């Protein structure tokens, strides 16, 4: 494999490492629609369920997620509903650290609305809990509801339910548009509040994702149930022709199921196996990348397997598939022995891969498939 290729797929690892360091439990970047929002919520719900969190905290996390996602959906495209460029795609991140769930959203806003938005946020942040309630009522009675049905009611709700300040930041895109980042935290032990939050990491990450034209990214723990929710986010994406989308879906299933079945955990974390998956688009081709931990002891065997499959094509590849299909000695709940061959056949290209050593027993496996 060319040096350059390895460097490119190693990029997945860098991204993953960065996210792990920052405890980015879950990240989504792309277009936000009702269907996608539902899938994101189900996916986060699945992750929360397996975290063993108290129902009170879970409930608060949900309601804030919903407000936050609705905010992005409503405001992601100024003036009309057509997404004008990939850079307008919103971002949604939920992290689990510092004894709190940290929720951040990012979406495009018109520069002309920034001042008003800032005033609103500052007012909300200056108010105590009871005053927030009164403010909420006042806005309702004023009838000053904006065209998009907002008027900041969602923001007030978020502030009330989180019990924390709403942190925010803007980043200018051009003369007309800026990104609006909004962050809040739900403390696990009620009354410990946050006073300062650094949004730079997420801003940088968002920039990388935009630069690489990543149309969909997921980082987090993955089990079969989560996989199903994640798949429905791709089904709702307005990408490519029907056959391309189907191909993306098929390849995605195999890549993600590889993580669920063969992935390893680095620590004794709860839930599914940690992994990263993203799709980027360039020159009418799609790159699907996955990354997960595996046992260092299987690295050699796995590379040989992929090299072998990469080395054959056409009829030979087809014959090898049939041979494996009928090999019923490999037929367990974990293994059918067909995944890698199937990926090679569906993509029509060689599979790119790399390994990075993590510690004595664990390596990180990056896989990239181009269609």
């Amino acid at each position: 494999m060319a040096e350059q290729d390895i460097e490119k797929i190693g990029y997945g690892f860098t991204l993953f490492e960065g996210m792990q360091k920052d405890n980015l439990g879950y990240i989504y970047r792309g277009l936000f629609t009702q269907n996608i929002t539902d899938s994101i919520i189900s996916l986060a719900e699945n992750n929360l369920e397996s975290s063993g969190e108290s129902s009170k905290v879970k409930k608060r996390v949900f309601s804030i997620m919903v407000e936050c996602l609705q905010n992005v959906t409503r405001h992601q495209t100024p003036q009309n509903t057509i997404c004008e460029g990939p850079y307008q795609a919103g971002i949604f991140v939920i992290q689990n650290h510092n004894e709190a769930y940290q929720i951040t959203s990012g979406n495009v806003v018109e520069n002309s609305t920034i001042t008003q938005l800032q005033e609103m946020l500052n007012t909300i942040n200056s108010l105590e809990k009871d005053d927030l309630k009164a403010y909420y009522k006042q806005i309702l009675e004023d009838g000053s509801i904006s065209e998009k049905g907002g008027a900041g009611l969602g923001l007030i709700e978020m502030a009330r339910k989180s019990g924390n300040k709403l942190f925010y930041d803007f980043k200018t895109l051009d003369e007309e548009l800026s990104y609006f980042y909004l962050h809040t935290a739900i403390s696990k032990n009620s009354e410990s509040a946050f006073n300062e939050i650094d949004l730079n990491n997420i801003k940088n990450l968002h920039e990388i994702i935009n630069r690489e034209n990543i149309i969909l990214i997921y980082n987090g723990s993955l089990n079969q149930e989560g996989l199903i929710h994640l798949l429905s986010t791709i089904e709702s994406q307005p990408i490519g022709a029907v056959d391309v989308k189907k191909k993306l879906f098929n390849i995605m299933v195999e890549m993600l199921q590889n993580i669920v079945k063969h992935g390893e955990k680095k620590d004794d974390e709860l839930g599914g196996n940690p992994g990263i998956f993203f799709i980027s688009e360039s020159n009418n081709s799609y790159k699907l990348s996955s990354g997960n931990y595996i046992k260092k002891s299987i690295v050699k065997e796995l590379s040989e397997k992929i090299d072998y499959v990469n080395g054959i094509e056409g009829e030979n590849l087809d014959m090898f598939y049939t041979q494996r299909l009928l090999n019923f000695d490999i037929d367990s709940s974990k293994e059918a022995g067909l995944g890698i061959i199937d990926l090679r056949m569906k993509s029509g290209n060689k599979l790119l891969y790399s390994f990075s050593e993590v510690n004595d027993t664990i390596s990180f496996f990056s896989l990239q498939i181009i269609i």
Partner: protein
Amino acid sequence: MEAFIIEKTEETPEIILNPAEHIFKISHRSLPENANGFYAPVFEWLEEFRQNLPDDDIQFVFELEYFNTATAKQIAKILLLLEKISHEVSLEIIWKYRKEDVDMMSSGLRYSKLLDVEFSIQEIEE
């Protein structure tokens, strides 16, 4: 023999094996994590069915929009079992695919080449 019915979910197919109604059909999609475990009761039922075969012709329909590789192997096993059954009673396998779904059509073609049984690959009328 009593019918065997599994309702579809987001990750598993609808399966209807109903001799009384002459319906034998696996449809929707199949991507369970443990395909081996999911299809185990299907084999159990088919083995029992093989001991109590009806006189009527059997049409066994596959109408899947997607299946994962773990399922591919289970389908191969089902088809091989149906091939055996076809030695004792008239049986036809019908493999349906949606228009333009080349992958699903080639899968049908691949399976048909492996078997010595009546096997018809049909495009679904929209």
